[in-house]
Structure formats: C-alpha cells, structure tokens
C-alpha cells in the first residue's frame, strides 16, 4: 500500500533549541499512527509542522505534493487538524462552529451553495450526538461537548487525513471512549488515515495500528504498534519499567 502522507528529515528549531530532530514517518491508508513519548518529546510540534503552523526544514508530502506549496484551503481539504485546546470567546452556536469546517470549499464570493457540505455538517452533528445542541451557545458547553463540536467540525471538513493532538485530553472516561470510537468509525471509510498524539499509553496501544516513539525530538522506534511499544523501548524512553507499572495499576481492579 502506498503512503498518503510522508515526512522526510523534519527538523524544527526554536532559536538554538531543536524541538524535532531529523524525524521521518509515513502514513498509509487505513492506518492510525500514534505519536507517543514523554513531555517535551516534540509530539505537538511535529503536528504543528504538519499543519503548517511552525516553520520546519525537511519535507512533508501528501502523495506527490509538498504541503508547504499548497494553498491553505487546499491543505484543509486534505488534512483536518483537531488541536488540544479549543475555547471559544463569543457566543457562536454549535452549528456555526461546525459549519466553519466547510470554509475551504466555498467557491465564490457570494456562493452559499455547498449541498454536499450541508449533508456533511448534518451527519457530523449526528455522529457526535450534537443535533439537539445545534443552536446552543458555545459558552454554555462543557469541556467534553466543546471537544465534540470541534471533532464534528473536522468531520464536516471531510479531509483524508485527521491529525489530532490529544483529542480526549482532560475528558471524562466516557467521553474519551466516545471520541476514540467515533474516530475509529471515521477511519473505516476508504482512503482515510489518522495521525495523533496520545499521552495515555493504554489508549494508544488499544486504538493505534502503528506508532512512533519519540524522545527529545528524536524518533526512537517506529513501525507497527506492538513492535514499537515494547517493554524495552518504553523503559528506554520513560526511564522506568512501564510494563510493570501498568500491570500493577490494572491489577488493582481485579478480584
């Protein structure tokens, strides 16, 4: 299978500080690639580089096109980004925020005819369980609901690749499960792939198909999830016996 997103020798520097150091990856159809690693490993920065939010050296290609050569609206039609912190300052309605996901598809100055868009907004609202909240003000939503609104927005955007930064961070367990299941459903359509930062190693292991283990800007291991997240690799990156710790944690719930 051919890679739909391929990064080669990506390096991001802030001043003298190298945050992402010569990292390469590739993402194929149907894959869910997890970026794992401790704080300061450069996971979010790598995602920002893919989203063209920070300057980088190296190359990130979608099929045969360099991402930085695409117009913002072209990029948005291929890659949808869900960031970690989303809070809205004004009383926009849920529907207005989700509808913004269709921005990249506006054809002309005064054209409102985006029939496919209306259908996609509708199904995104439904998939995320927000149909009843469509006219609610963003200022009245809880953290979990807000995150679902932005997930619905990125679904309405209908990209081929979802790039997610901690999509369920700080959410209650039921919302976590909800959001990860929604993304897994989304991934089932042909031609799609997901790349995400997930801090929780159990979640990463459960939902991911592939992984990159990062530490201080470098890629320590990459490949299929069970090859990357091995006791040895995790021990090296986190400086502790992660397997033993996880088992100890979960054993509390048994018996």
């Amino acid at each position, binding site marked *: 299978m051919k890679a739909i997103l391929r990064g080669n020798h990506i390096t991001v520097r802030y001043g003298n500080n190298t945050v992402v150091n010569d990292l390469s990856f590739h993402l194929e159809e149907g894959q869910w690639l997890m970026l794992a690693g401790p704080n300061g490993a450069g996971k979010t920065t790598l995602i920002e580089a893919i989203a*063209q939010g920070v300057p980088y050296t190296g190359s990130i290609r979608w099929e045969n096109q360099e991402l930085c050569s695409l117009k*913002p609206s072209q990029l948005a039609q291929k890659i949808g980004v869900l*960031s970690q912190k989303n*809070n809205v300052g*004004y*009383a926009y*309605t849920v529907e207005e925020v989700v509808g913004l996901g269709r*921005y990249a598809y*506006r054809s002309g*100055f005064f054209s409102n005819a985006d029939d496919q868009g209306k259908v996609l907004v509708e199904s995104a609202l439904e998939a995320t369980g927000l149909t009843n909240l469509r006219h609610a003000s963003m200022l009245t939503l809880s953290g979990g609901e807000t995150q679902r609104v932005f997930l619905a927005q990125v679904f309405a955007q209908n990209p081929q690749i979802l790039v997610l930064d901690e999509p369920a961070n700080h959410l209650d367990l039921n919302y976590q499960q909800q959001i990860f299941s929604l993304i897994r459903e989304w991934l089932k359509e042909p031609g799609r792939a997901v790349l995400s930062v997930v801090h929780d190693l159990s979640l990463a292991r459960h939902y991911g198909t592939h992984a990159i283990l990062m530490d201080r800007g470098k890629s320590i291991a990459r490949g299929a999830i069970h090859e990357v997240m091995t006791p040895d690799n995790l021990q090296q990156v986190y400086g502790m016996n992660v397997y033993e710790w996880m088992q100890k944690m979960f054993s509390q719930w048994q018996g």
Partner: protein
Amino acid sequence: MLDSRQLKRERFTPLTYLFLAVALLFTMILCICVGSVSISFSDTITSIWNAVRGVPTPGSITGNIILNVRLPRVLCVSLAGAALSLCGAAMQGLLRNPLADGSTMGVSSGAALGAVIAMAAGFTLPGFSYGGIMVTAMAFAFGSLILILSLAYSLDHSLSTNNIILIGVIFTMFISSIISLIITFASDHTRSLSFWTLGSFSGVNYHQVKLLFIALVICGGILFRFAPELNAFAIGEDNARHVGVNVKRVKLIVLITVSVLIGVCVSISGTISFVGLVMPHIARMLVGPNHKRLLPASLFSGAIFLLLADLTARTILSPIELSIGVVTSLVGAVAFVIIFYRSRKRR
C-alpha cells in the same frame, strides 16, 4: 427533544435591520430639529425635500441652518459613528479580544499624531485638499497598529489578552504628549489639542461627508467580504488556519482596511473614544457574534449612538458646546468596566 440551552437567535430576521434603519432615520431627523435654534419637524422635512428637488425654500434662515450646518453635521456624525463601530467589531473579531478598538489600542491617537504632523508641516497632496493629512493619518494608524500588535505578541504570543490594551493605553498617553508638544510649537497650523484628544464635528461640510462616505463604502465593503474569515478568527486563529483560512493575508488586509477607515475618521473629527468598543457589544447582544449580521448591525448602532452623543454634546450645556468625546467617554468608560469585568469572570 430540544436542549434548554438553545439560543433564541433564530428569531433574527430582516425586520431587525428595518427596525435599526427606522431608528437611525428617526435619530437623524431628531438631531436636525434640535439645537440652539429649534426647527419644527415639518420645516425640516420640507427644506430637505425642497433641496432634493432643487427648489429654494422660502424663509431661508432655517433652510440655511438645516442644509449648510445641521445636515452635513448629522451625515458626518452618522458616517463616522458607523465607521468607528465597524472597525471595532472587525478588530474584536480578528484579535478575538472583546476590548479591542481603535481608541483602546492606540490606533486613533497614532492617526491623530499623523494628522497633526501633516498639518504642522503643511504636507498636502496636489489637487486634493485634506489628502496629505488623511494619508499621513492612515499611515500612522497602520504603523501604530503594527507596533502595538508586535509589542503585545512578543510579550505572550497571544493577541487576545489584556496586555494589548495596556500597551495601547500607555501608547495613547505617550502620543498625546507628543501631540501637545507639536501643537505648542505649531499652534497656527494645526487644530487645538482638545479637538485631537476629544473630537468634534463642529464646522464640517459636504466635502468631508463625501470623503467619509467613500471611505466607508470601500472599507466597509472589504470588511463585509471578510465576514466568514472574521468569524473563523473570532472562534480562534489556530482553528481558522486549520479550516483553511489564509490567516496572514486576511489579517493584513483587515488591519490595513481598519487603519484607513480610522485614519479618515480621525483626520475629520479627531479621536472619539469608545464608540468602536461599546457599540459592537450592543450589536452582538441584538444579533449574535456572527459577523455576517454583526457588521451591519454595528454600522447602525454606531451611527445612532454617535448621533445621540453629538446631540447631547451640542445641547446639554447650550450655548456652550461640549467635545463629543466627553460624552462618549462618560458612557464608554462605564461600559468598558462592565465588559472587562464580564470577560474576566468568564475565564
């Protein structure tokens, strides 16, 4: 089943615009009628109607007052109010900062400094009286905006915090002292300090009405065109980039447009504070934050507010005329505190 948090904003109809337009027209007529010489409603309508048809009005003293003094003034005030309010709405959206406005961010005083320098130096454009002053005011407005934004950005990489307002206020104080310094040395060439810091519409004529009108049509048109992008910015700049907005380009165009409009306003009427801060909030209460509705509503509310402020300034201590900025600041400072308090509480 509907959630109880549904907004009732679907109630918004074109009727709201009709209501605003009627309110504006009524306010304009009121402002023409009331003044040091009171003119009856029917006289007002007759002389304007006659002038429109090109027929001279008998009893030409009131006709003269209406057509040459009050009408241009009322038109100027409403256009300036609409323009300032529009700029405020655009900046509050673009920077995602409910306290942003030409006056709180120091843009207006920057424009005033430009105008004062142009006047003191006698800088003019050939064939276009006022042109030199206006262009300098616009350039200085844009320069101040860039300076303040980059200072605020270098502080905490965000433009939605209150640092930007703090810098704007300090910048305004700094610029005011430079303006008063220049006026001290070149008072023959420029207008008084109180004109530049508090604003005034006394003595405006149709030439200025025309300039304001052209500026408002062009700049207003550009801002209306960018309503979807302003919505995206108001929701969040990162989110705007993620959905495909060309953030750098949009930001540059909106900031230039706002600077041009503020430059024109300031060179005609001095700095009038708080119109652009307060009126977009009132408009937002009426029609919600979506800029497709917010920008037109801000136009109307800004025009009405400034007309009433000008009327108060003209009549409350008659025959003494107050500076219009005295009235807008009295109202605006209170509103500023309320908005500030509410936006802090929300975090």
